[in-house]
């Protein structure tokens, strides 16, 4: 399993820039830095250009989420868990989850301030790419 997992990671890393973090096109923002995106997802930063930011995850175990966590958040699953347990006591919840990229796409489209990550190919007009990984 582990071999498969790592090989997947290696394969995914080969296709760099395949995924994109997106927001609604109504959000007035430029491209975000990796750090900025990370802070949004760790809920260290709550606003995106004066707009309340709503980070959205794919369900855990999703390879895109794993890829996102590795490449954007730079944290493995254990340290993330540790982080969110700590945050739980501070009254902060981890970003809520949408089951599929499609759900994320529609959600982000409908909800101004929502930030999600999907395959670049799924990005349409209603969305704006703020980061690529």
């Amino acid at each position, binding site marked *: 399993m582990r071999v498969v997992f790592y090989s997947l990671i290696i394969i995914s890393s080969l296709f760099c820039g395949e995924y994109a973090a997106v927001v609604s096109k109504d959000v007035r923002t430029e491209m975000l830095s990796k750090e900025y995106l990370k802070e949004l997802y760790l809920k260290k930063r709550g606003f995106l250009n004066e707009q309340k930011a*709503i980070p959205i995850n794919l369900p855990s175990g999703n390879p895109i989420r794993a890829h996102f966590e590795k490449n954007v958040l730079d944290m493995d699953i254990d340290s993330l868990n540790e982080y969110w347990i700590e945050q739980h006591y501070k009254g902060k919840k981890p970003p809520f989850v*949408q*089951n599929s990229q499609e*759900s994320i796409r*529609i959600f982000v489209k409908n909800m101004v301030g929502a930030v999600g990550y999907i395959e670049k190919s799924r990005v349409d007009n209603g969305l704006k790419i703020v980061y690529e990984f």
Partner: protein
Amino acid sequence: MNFKVKATLLFLAASLIPYIIGMFYLLAKSQDEHFQSRQNELLFELEKVADRIDNNLKMIEKDFIFISKLEVMNDIVSFDLDRRISEILLAKKNDLELQGDYTATDLKNNAIASSNLKNIGKEFAGKYLFKQEITSSFTGQKIGDLILEYKLENLKSFLKSAEGSVIYLYDSKNNVTYFKTQEFEKSITLRKPLKLLNGMELVMMVDKDAMLNLFKDLRNVTIISLVGGFLLILAVSLYFAKKIITPITRLSKTAIDISDTGDYTKRVLVESKDEIGMLSAAFNNMIESIEDMLARLKKESENKIKLQEEKSKNEMLESLSKKLSRYLSPQIFDSIFLGRQDVKIESKRKKLTIFFSDIVNFTETTDRMESEDLTAILNYYLNEMNTIALKHGATIDKFIGDAIMAFFGDPDTKGVKEDACACVDMALEMMQKIDELKNHWLNSGISRPFKIRIGINTGFSTVGNFGSEERMDYTIIGGAINLASRIESFAEPNEIWISEETYLLVSDRYRCTEKGEIAVKGFLRSVKMYKVEGYKENDENTVWRREEKGFSITILPQEVNKDRLKNILKETLQKLE
């Protein structure tokens, strides 16, 4: 109607009437109470059903609110592409076995998710029971609604009721009833509004007949217990009536038995100590005393008969002796009948004073008379003489025709002197009586009155019963008697002559004149005789006596009223002049 029946009826009336009244009162009261309590029970049952429904709805509502607050509801924003909300809603519906559906709508009232997949994508326009706003977990803004369509069929399972009743729903707003499965002719209706179903009422309809059927059982039980009670009371009444009556019956039977047979030895059995027992005991005592009394009466009557027999014997004896007494001198009679002297051949020697009297020329005087007249005159004379003799205590020995033989000194004696004096007294009184009798005789047609002569002698003679065993005579024999008889025969008419023996005894009391010594036949010596003139004159009590032809006077100083006598004598003198 006999007493047993009466007593039984009395007991029955005394116990049955209050019993029946009590039973009916109890029945009526218990019916009322039962009815009321039954109604309360039904109401309670209805309330319980209503509570159950309310609780169920409350639980569903809580659950509903909980679902609306789930984070997954954020999927409304993404049109629930992954059907996560629908899955939860369907699971919940199945879990609650609910008829009706949960639906989540977006702000435009389009169904985003539903337990009924057919609703998804359509605008929701149905009726709902609960509606809850859904807010996003990230902005807190409303993103849609959660709606529960609730079918009333869900409540059907709660509307179970006992037989004879039905529970159904009534929508008072729309005047519609639901699930009314039965109708009753007569019914009682109970209502309870449901808290969470606005305008809905829970209604219970109870069949009155079925309810009253319950009382039928009660009535049957009452009737059975009435009949049972009646039989019990009847049995108890009969038992007690019998217990009371039996001794009375026994008593009356015994009484009738006794009156029929006259057997007073019979008794009543006394078993109890109550009033009837006391009555029986008293009856026994009465019968016992009657028995005693009868026995005593029997004895007494036997004694009485004996006495009567004895009495009649005695009376016979008495009349016999009375008759006899006429033939016997009273002294002899008394001494024999008082048992002083036995009737047996016996004699003794005693000094007696013997008296003889005789009517002078009786045969000549009475020759021309009829025997009836003669008997009457003689009997009258003898009776008078007898009376005088008895007065002086003489024992009359016998009447010999017109002659009287008597003696003094037996069986009673006062002493020889006193006997002699008594004899002379008697002789004097007899003489006086003859004077009185003269008038009587004159009236009887006897022109020449009787004259008597009396002879008295005192001397020893043999006195006693003489004769044979079959016929005895109490008499005296001896020379003294013969002498007395001789003296009497010597005496002049209307004179009392006494022997010297007698004279010596009485001379101190009587005036006597000597008549000289007279030779008496059968006696060797001549006998000196005296004539009694009267009582001695110096003696105040001396009888004064004078007699001439055609005249006689006797004065008894003890008896006479002197003044009256003087007057009579004066009158006599005047007549003579």
